[in-house]
């Protein structure tokens, strides 16, 4: 192999590793997050330092790039799920059931968005349930059904938006502190796929 070819190969590899690797890893750390900045509970992921003034650069970049305005994670945690509990991508063509156990004294809200964080268009103009609006079972549990068509009980319409994202907001300072410290905490609800069409 000639000297020119050798130099060319080294130049291409250098550029690919330096710029491809640098940009790719930065994009991944900012958009998807890693163990340095997020914690995952089944399908739910939260940015543990979101909203805090002392947040790490990845969390700050994630917040700014996505136009988010989070309340400090010392008080409130926002969990996002893009997949169900079996790992399949959430989509408006499937129905899902989310059962929240008795979460007292925490205040919570479960909302559905499309893949870009916009509210899903639906005739009922219903986009979320919280612990004051959702109906509870006699045993204190709350079952929420995410589906395109109307369902009895707590029905959250998923519209026809294709990919959907579920966002669970939990306001509980003790829980937030435990998650931030990496301590064992109460479990988050599973997202069970019940049907697809």
């Amino acid at each position: 192999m000639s000297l020119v070819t050798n130099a060319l190969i080294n130049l291409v590899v250098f550029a690919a590793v330096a710029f491809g690797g640098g940009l790719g890893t930065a994009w991944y750390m900012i958009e998807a997050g890693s163990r340095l900045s997020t914690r995952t509970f089944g399908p739910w992921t939260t940015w543990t330092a979101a909203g805090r003034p002392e947040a790490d650069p990845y969390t700050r970049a994630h917040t700014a790039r996505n136009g988010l305005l989070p309340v400090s994670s010392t008080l409130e945690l926002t969990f996002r799920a893009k997949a169900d509990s079996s790992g399949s991508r959430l989509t408006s063509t499937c129905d899902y059931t989310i059962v929240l156990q008795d979460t007292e004294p925490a205040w919570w809200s479960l909302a559905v968005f499309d893949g870009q964080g916009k509210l899903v268009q639906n005739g009922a103009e219903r986009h979320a349930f919280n612990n004051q609006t959702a109906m509870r079972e006699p045993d204190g549990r709350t079952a929420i059904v995410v589906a395109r068509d109307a369902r009895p009980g707590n029905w959250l319409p998923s519209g026809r938006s294709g990919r959907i994202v579920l966002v669970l907001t939990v306001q509980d300072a003790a829980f937030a502190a435990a998650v931030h410290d990496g301590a064992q905490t109460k479990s988050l609800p599973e997202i069970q796929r019940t049907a697809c069409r």
Partner: protein
Amino acid sequence: MILNLPFKPRLPAWIGEVSWRTLAGAAFLGGAVHICVTFAAPLVGAGNAFQQLRATLPLNRMVVLPAPASGKQILPYLPPDMLYAMCRYELTGGPVSVTAAVSGPGWVLSLHTPQGDNFYVLPGQQLRSGEVSFLLVPSGDAAHAQRRASATDTQVASPRPEGLIVVRAPLTGLAWLAETDAVLRRSSCTQVKR
């Protein structure tokens, strides 16, 4: 563990031409690119929440925003089962007097820098009375700190001369929408002239 593959994987010949110096240099530069991109990311793109809200929010005035609906969202992923009152403040002309009702579970009063840092937060359930009032002053404004109106006049220092005040009220149903809206409208944000 030794794998007995039926074939021997062959790497392309050109890989042998890549020098370790090239890889080391590329890894070093890749690290620098990673750091630069991470710190530059907030500065590029559609803009952070403050930049997106700057055009819609008047200065030093609390505005109750319409209930979130599809196609009428002010920010992505903002909890939709809430009503929001927001004030874009600027402290260069003097401190800002803030009054807000934070009257129950789910209610939150939060103060944010233009970068989105939430430097002060007050959840509803921790309050004894429903209403809170304080003076928002620039950080390190010792001169103003000495001119307190009274000993009970609470001051909150803002790390930046501008930012956002957000009062968030959970929607507990259509029947309570007007009542929640009325309580939110009691919130205010007024500049106190020096």
